[in-house]
Every structure is written in C-alpha cells, then in structure tokens.
C-alpha cells in the first residue's frame, strides 16, 4: 500500500517538476519586453475597439500613444476628457482639449417629400443598394434607409425612424467615433460641433444637382438659391455646386437663415419654438 503512495508521489512530483522547468525555460526564451505604460494607457481607454481613432483597436491606439512623441494627432473620439488627461499624466505628454462632436444626418427626405418610385428587393444593405443604383426615390444622393449606419454603430446611438425612413442620432450616446460617417455609402453623415443643449442648425441635404433637378427629386432639397447666404451675418454659410453648407464652427446659432430657406432644407433642432410659429400653432 505504502508502495503505491510513494510511487505516485515520486512520479507525479517528477512530472510536475519537469513541466515546471520546461515552462520556465520557454518563458525566459520567448519573453517579450513591452513598455508597461501600454497596459496602463490601455486601461484608461474605453475598450470598445471601435476603430474611431483610425487604428485597429484600443491596444494599437495605446501603443501608438506610447510610441509617438507628439500625440496631438492621435484622438480617441470615445474617451472622456478626464480619461485623456489621465493618459497625458501617465505619459507626460500634452494632449489638446478635444472639441466635442456629434454625428448629424444630412438628409431629410421622407417618403412624403421624395416619394418611392420603385421597390428595392436586394440584400438589405445601403452599400449593396448604392452600388446597384440610385435608390428607391428619385434622389441619387439621399439616404437609402437600409440602416448600415445603425449596424455599424457600437454605441446604439443611431436608430431608424420608421415613419421618416431616416436614421436618427441620439446625441447623448453618440461618441463621434466616425464609424457611421465612413460606413455611409452616400456620405450623408457628418460630424459637427456639439452645441449647448444639443442645439444644431444645418443644411439637411447633400444634393449637388441644379435647383430645378434637385427640387424635382425631393421637396426638401437644397436648391442652391443662396438666400441663406445673404441672411447669415457671420459668413458661416458657403454655396458650392448648388449646395449650401453651414460651417459649424463659424455658425453662432442665430437662426436667421432657416426661415429664409424656400424648401425648408435647413433644420433647427432643440431650439425653442419660434414666436411666429407658436402663434400660428395657437391659432390652429
């Protein structure tokens, strides 16, 4: 009986010892020296691996931060400014204060303003439909409404509004990671400066056709008439290729331009209701 016990102890002990030696040798031979700061930095990052920084995942971003001398060019759109400050302390490098941004969908073509002209019956992806043809409406620039942006968003910050058939961004959840901007085959989504109370004012159209053509394809298209241009006191609006654009940095949210637009292509969001409109509604 004791024989068995002794033999077991010896054989198991020997096997364990041999394994331990092999493990130790392998570990020493293949040891990779890594900057310990990479782990520290990575801990501060959101670990969403969204690719918003342009690098494949948070680890790669952390490595880049540690490696680079000047890290002002590296931006994680998701991290809070506190987290970035902590990282700058760890690395002892300056990080500029990032400007908060939010994704904005620059198309307002609902089924009413641009009626459906044919039925798309392919794979339910904007990228597939866009490669095939101009889309269900007459507007070859507008939103296809198949939700590639919703798919790609890692923060559930975009959803499709079933009534308008257009995606809508939830400002509180949007981290401005840029994923939807690159995903949209029509380049409709843009990152714009985040304003107080999530207010925004922008041209919700990217149609560069001439006025008549644009209007024919969609009732709320920008027709490039330039009226908003004249109304703007801050030189924030430019007109190129029959399309007006409001510079989010120059814009002071004065709301002078919106009422000028003959096609209601300029959207004002999260503003108090206008006096005249409120009155009109009250009369109704």
């Amino acid at each position, binding site marked *: 009986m004791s024989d068995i016990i002794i033999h077991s102890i010896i054989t198991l002990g020997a096997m364990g010892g041999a394994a331990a030696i092999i493990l130790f040798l392998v570990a020493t031979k293949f040891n990779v020296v890594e900057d310990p700061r990479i782990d520290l930095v990575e801990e501060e990052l959101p670990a969403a691996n969204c690719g918003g920084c342009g690098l494949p995942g948070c680890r790669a971003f952390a490595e880049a931060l540690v490696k680079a001398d000047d890290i002002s060019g590296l931006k994680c759109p998701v991290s809070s400014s506190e987290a970035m400050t902590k990282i700058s302390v760890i690395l002892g490098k300056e990080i500029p204060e990032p400007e908060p941004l939010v994704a904005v969908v620059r198309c307002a073509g609902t089924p009413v303003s641009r009626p*459906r002209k*044919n039925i798309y*019956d392919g794979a339910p992806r904007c990228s597939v439909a866009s490669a*095939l043809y101009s889309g*269900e409406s007459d507007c070859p620039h507008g939103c296809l409404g198949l939700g590639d942006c919703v798919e790609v968003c890692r923060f559930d910050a975009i959803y499709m509004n079933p009534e308008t058939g257009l995606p809508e961004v939830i400002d509180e959840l949007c981290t401005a990671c840029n994923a939807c901007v690159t995903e949209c085959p029509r380049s409709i989504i843009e990152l714009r400066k985040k304003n107080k109370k999530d207010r925004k004012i922008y041209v919700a159209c990217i149609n560069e056709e001439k006025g008549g053509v644009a209007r024919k394809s969609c009732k709320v298209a920008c027709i490039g008439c330039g009226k908003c241009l004249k109304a703007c006191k801050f030189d924030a609006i430019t007109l190129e290729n029959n399309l007006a654009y409001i510079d989010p940095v120059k814009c002071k949210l004065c709301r002078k331009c919106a009422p000028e637009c003959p096609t209601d292509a300029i959207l004002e969001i999260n503003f108090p209701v206008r006096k005249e409109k409120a009155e009109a509604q009250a009369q109704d």
Partner: protein
Amino acid sequence: MDKLITVSPSPHAYGDDTVKKLMYGVLYALLPAFLVSVYFFGIGALIVTAISVVSCVMFEYLIQKYMMKTEPTVSDGSAAVTGVLLAMNLPTNMPWWIIVIGALVAIGVGKMSFGGLGNNPFNPALVGRVFLFISFPVQMTSWPEPIISRLQYTDAVTGATPLAVMKEGLAAGVPLSRLVEQIPGYLDLFIGHLHGSMGEISALALLAGGIYMIARKIITWHIPVSIFLTVFLFTGILWLINPYDNADPVFHLITGGLVLGAVFMATDYATSPMTPKGMWIFGIGIGVITVAIRVYGAYPEGISFAILIMNSFVPLINKYVKPKRFGEEVKNG
C-alpha cells in the same frame, strides 16, 4: 406605369427549389419505408410516427414562438422530417411519453438550442434517439415481432434484432453457423421481415427512397455510397480473415440501421460536409466507426454513434477540405 417596378441586383431568375420542397421531398422518400413498417408492425408504426411528428412540430412551434420570439417556420417541413426520422429509429412498441421526451430532446436540445434550421451541429433525430437509447435502454431494445404484432402497440411480443442475436451469440461462443439459423434469410432481411426499429427494417424501401432523393437532387450519392463501400470493404476483410467468427459483408449491409443511417441520417444538410471530397471522408469515417462498434464495441449497432461522432468533425472537414478551385492548379493539355 401606375405600379412600382422592382429593382434588385442580378440574377433575376430563380430555381424552383425551396427549403419546403426539399424537406417534403425527404418525406416522400421516407414513404416506402414507412409503408413497409406499417405492413409489418401495423398500428404500432402508425401511433409512434404520429406522436413523434406531432410532438416535434409542436415543440418547434412553441420554442420559436415563445422562447426565440420569431415567426414559426414549422411549415417548411424540417421539424416533420426530424419527427419521422426519430420515429424510424424507435421500436414500434414505444410508450407515447418516451417518444414525447425524445422529440423534446431532438428539437429542443438537438436543433433549436443551436439556433434552428441549418445551425445544428448534430443530427437532431439522432440526438433524440441516442438520448432515449441511453435513458431507456430496455424499451429501446425490445423490438416487436413483425406481422403477428400488427394489432398490438405496447403489449406486443418482442424479440431481438439480427445484429443483437449475432453479437450476443458470438460473445457467448455460439458458432456462426448455428446463429445464422436463428436469423431470417437474406431476402427477408432485405425486404424488412425482421425485428428492428420501425424504419430500419427494409433496406429495399430505404434504398428506393434514397434513389428518389438522388434523382431529385435532394442529396448527392457521395455519402451513402462511401458508407456502403467502407462497411462492405471493412467487414469483407474481417470475413476473409476469419469467416467463422465474422458475419459476411452482405449481412452487415442489409441489417440494422445502416441503410437508414447512410441514406437519411448522414445526408442531413446541416450536419454533413459540403464538398464531395469532404463527403467521402465523412462517409468513410462513419463506415469505419460503425463496423468497429458492431464488431468490437459494446453495442450490436453503431451507426447512430458513428454519425454523431463524424458530425462533430464536420466543421473541421469544411474548414480544411475545399472544393477544387477553378484555375488553382494549372493542368493544361
């Protein structure tokens, strides 16, 4: 044009096959075996099949509707196929509640827990069958007497399958020549006049169903043929080496669940390889394991375990066995 036209990427023409048509095709192919079974086992066959199909369809419906919260797709016939195949694997004197348990395991564990049609790694009917085989070994291995128990259900007179007679006899040292006398003749074995599970008795009817499926392009010939060839060769070699202790290859081919397994169970779409080369590997594996279990293992029949074991290799086979790519190896002549 008042109506809206449709726009979609090419192609704009579509083949006639749908999941539903293929599944109903399998059901048609099972019809001859079912009829033979009804002829030999009478009401038992009808009751077992009915309970199995109804409970499989019901469980799939309930799980899809209330647990997965998706639109039930029971009308595609895949649950019915599982139901019939499960019934085919049971003796016809099986108590109803065991069948219901088997159906629940087959559909619930074997199929829906993996995500439903096309996502299950193991053949659902076999999962159900093996579960019952292990849980209720007595009921699963007492087969009713053909013809004379036509009007009996659970109270039928029972007997052992030829494979079991052979296995137990050889183990007990009974000479092969004596055992052969206890077994029905080859013609009876081929048309199905023997003890056995409901669907496995008639090799003839099952082969007819298999030919129908191959002709309708529901399955390809690779898997059944590779299994038959392997079993024939393997048992043939054993027989040639020692014809006194080993049954001949023809006996192995026409008894037990081999034909049912090779034609209907191993060819299940989701759980078999997708390329002809892979199908050969799969079939050879099943054949070898089946014979190994029959000859050396603890059970008289091994096709169910063989298929389940090879099912687990399918993802690996699919990953490494690729179809011949056009222009890959340039052989110009």
